[in-house]
């Protein structure tokens, strides 16, 4: 049932990915407007794209070659984290190296820029909820994990109980794997911990980037919001990209039981049954959003003033 829902979620995930791709945000400025900010935007975007490409390359290598190095999938499971880390590292480098030109007369706004002030509520809330579900799933997986047939701790789910068969108590039990116990949860937890540090570093880099000229304040604030949005999207992709397979695996294992399930197991089963497909769809949308970072486009020609005869076509009224 779990895998069925996940397969059914695939077309929805493709649609979510396509919708995210077409929702590209672009702001157009005049050819001579906000030159400093346009330069900063170009630099931060270029580094973010470089980070994304390197992240996708690293993630792809982990998916393809990770299986050869570790056939049990521990490296493969880190592919979403590699993509997220690439974007975050690119963002950090871009924000740290983008500096507005300083002239003889310099101005600064008397304001306190904080990370908290830059965080959008909805996207942050979504990330926190997703991270909490992932942490909970990994914690449950680690708590309920057992050694597999080769003695690798936390790699299978073992159950045993007594059932009445033809009026006789019969001891029965089974061991199923792979199970996202400590065998997988420890490397995943470590990778997500590193990612959390990168998220914090990237947010601080965005908040601390110096302001350009005062006339570009509005655009600069928008650029920071875009950067923060990208950081949260990269983190959300990593969390959901990891949660999807983990939750599906838990739901699959708990759906195929020989013993009666406890209340906790029923709750975990239903939560993961819902969380797995949702994470798949959300992860696809997040990946689409990462591929089309917002951009500032510079208009080639100066804009005609209202009432001024336009060089081509009808005058603008």
């Amino acid at each position, binding site marked *: 049932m779990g895998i069925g829902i996940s397969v059914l979620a695939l077309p929805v995930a493709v649609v979510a990915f396509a919708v995210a791709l077409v929702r590209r945000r672009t702001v157009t400025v005049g050819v001579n407007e906000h030159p400093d900010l346009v330069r900063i935007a170009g630099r931060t975007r270029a580094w973010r794209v470089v980070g994304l490409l390197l992240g996708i390359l690293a993630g792809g290598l982990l998916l393809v070659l990770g299986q050869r190095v570790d056939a049990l999938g521990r490296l493969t499971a880190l592919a979403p984290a590699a993509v997220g880390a690439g974007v975050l590292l690119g963002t950090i480098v871009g924000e740290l190296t983008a500096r507005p030109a*300083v002239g003889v007369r310099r101005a*600064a706004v*008397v304001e306190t820029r904080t990370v908290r002030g830059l965080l959008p509520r909805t996207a942050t809330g979504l990330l926190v909820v997703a991270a909490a579900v992932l942490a909970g799933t990994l914690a449950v997986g680690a708590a309920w994990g057992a050694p597999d047939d080769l003695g690798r701790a936390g790699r299978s789910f073992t159950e045993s109980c007594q059932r009445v068969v033809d009026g006789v108590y019969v001891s029965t039990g089974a061991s199923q794997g792979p199970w996202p116990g400590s065998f997988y949860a420890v490397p995943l937890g470590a990778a997500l911990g590193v990612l959390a540090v990168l998220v914090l570093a990237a947010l601080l880099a965005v908040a601390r980037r110096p302001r350009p000229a005062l006339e570009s304040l509005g655009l600069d604030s928008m650029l920071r919001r875009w950067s923060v949005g990208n950081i949260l999207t990269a983190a959300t992709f990593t969390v959901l990209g990891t949660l999807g397979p983990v939750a599906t695996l838990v739901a699959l294992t708990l759906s195929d039981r020989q013993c009666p399930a406890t209340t906790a197991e029923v709750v975990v089963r239903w939560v993961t049954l819902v969380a797995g497909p949702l994470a798949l769809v959300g992860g696809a949308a997040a990946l689409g959003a990462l591929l089309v970072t917002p951009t500032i486009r510079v208009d080639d020609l100066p804009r005609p003033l209202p009432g001024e005869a336009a060089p081509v076509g009808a005058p603008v009224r």
Partner: protein
Amino acid sequence: MTLQAVTVDVLDPTPPYEQLRRQLADLVGSGVLAPGDRLPPVRQLAADLGLAAGTVARTYRELEQAGYVRSRRGGGTRVAPAPPATATPQQALEDAAAAYLERAAVLGIPADEAVATVRRVAGA
């Protein structure tokens, strides 16, 4: 909320820390920055102005010694509960005008020409 700005002219003979101190003292003394308002972190203001962090730190230290602000470790720098209300906006403007005329004199420009320059710039 109107954002207040401070400016630093690196060609001005007045040291940058003093230019900054005057402007922030004016903003606090005239009530534009209210008691409890937080000033930008030293590193942030220094980065925005392209100055060394030590320059801004010196400004804050002098403002603190004069009773305009209070600094707390981990809590940033905030406007003091009862800062000296030395400057009204009019007084601050007159001080700025006097400083401008002083600088014009250093450059060998007479006062009437300096005033005409202000009119021309304001009209531009």
